[in-house]
């Protein structure tokens, strides 16, 4: 994994496999506290405490197509090497929240990468899932809600390739504005 935006796709894929109908992604850059936090919450089927404990073991996976599961261990490693950490809060039947935090200025922190692109691809590939994307930069935030966008688009699906780049541009312009203040 080259950057954090790829880990975000990886965790969203887990949420989708857990049957989530709503996924909320928050990226919070707080420069005064020198902290970068990424939270991914879903309303999927959730996991028991026992399974959550096993997740950090790369040789634990629920899938049957292969015998290793590196997603969470790699993500956690990125967080730990940047002076941060990772927690998983999950309840059976309610959903799962994966929170990772990083020391923003740490030289070992992977770059954030193109989060707008990651997010738009997930939204367009799964038009029936309700996605919310919050980008917080020094307490100012931009919120993208796929239901609002779907309403604007009307009979044109979020998966229509002609709208993907438009939605990506919209998210990027808003993030840019947040950062430029």
């Amino acid at each position, binding site marked *: 994994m080259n950057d954090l935006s*790829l880990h975000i796709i990886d965790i969203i894929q887990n949420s989708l496999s857990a049957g989530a109908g709503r996924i909320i992604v928050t990226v919070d850059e707080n420069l005064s506290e020198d902290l970068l936090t990424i939270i991914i919450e879903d309303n999927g089927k959730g996991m028991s405490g026992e399974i959550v404990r096993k997740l950090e073991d790369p040789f634990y996976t629920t899938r049957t197509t*292969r015998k290793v599961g590196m997603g969470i261990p790699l993500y956690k490693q990125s967080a730990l090497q940047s002076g941060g950490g990772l927690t998983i809060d999950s309840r059976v039947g309610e959903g799962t929240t994966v929170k990772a935090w990083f020391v923003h200025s740490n030289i070992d922190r992977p770059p954030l990468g193109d989060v707008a692109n990651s997010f738009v*691809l997930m939204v367009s590939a*799964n038009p029936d899932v309700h996605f919310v994307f919050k980008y917080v930069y020094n307490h100012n935030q931009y919120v993208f809600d796929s239901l609002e966008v779907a309403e604007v688009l*009307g009979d*044109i699906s979020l998966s229509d*390739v002609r709208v993907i780049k438009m939605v990506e541009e919209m998210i990027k312009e808003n993030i840019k504005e947040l950062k430029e203040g």
Partner: protein
Amino acid sequence: MNKIKSLEDLRKMKQNLEHGMNIREKSNEPESLVQIRVAMATCGIASGARTVMNTLVEKIEKEKIPAVVTQGGCMGYCYAEPTIEVKVPGKDPVVFGYVDTAKAIEIVEKYIVNGELLDGIIPTNYKTINDKN
């Protein structure tokens, strides 16, 4: 042209699209669309699945191909990632392995548009090492 920033900007752009509507009118019937599923598990993402997905989206938009790009999980072909499954209406789904940007464009131009056979298909009778145990 001004950049799209608000939902209102998006609404205006969408109206322009409606005027130019042609081949995509069938988009309400998913069975009539080519479905391209990109494997997006850890193995796929780490080997470049997102780049492949972006390439496919750009290519099918440019060529105005009635297709949708979706995502899937790990199919067990981790050794051959990035992998994509292509389902052309009326044909059996086909899985391609080791898909990079050039291969993705070749798959769209040759397999999807022209119906030509291509190298790089993972046979359906392939068994993963786990199946063999």
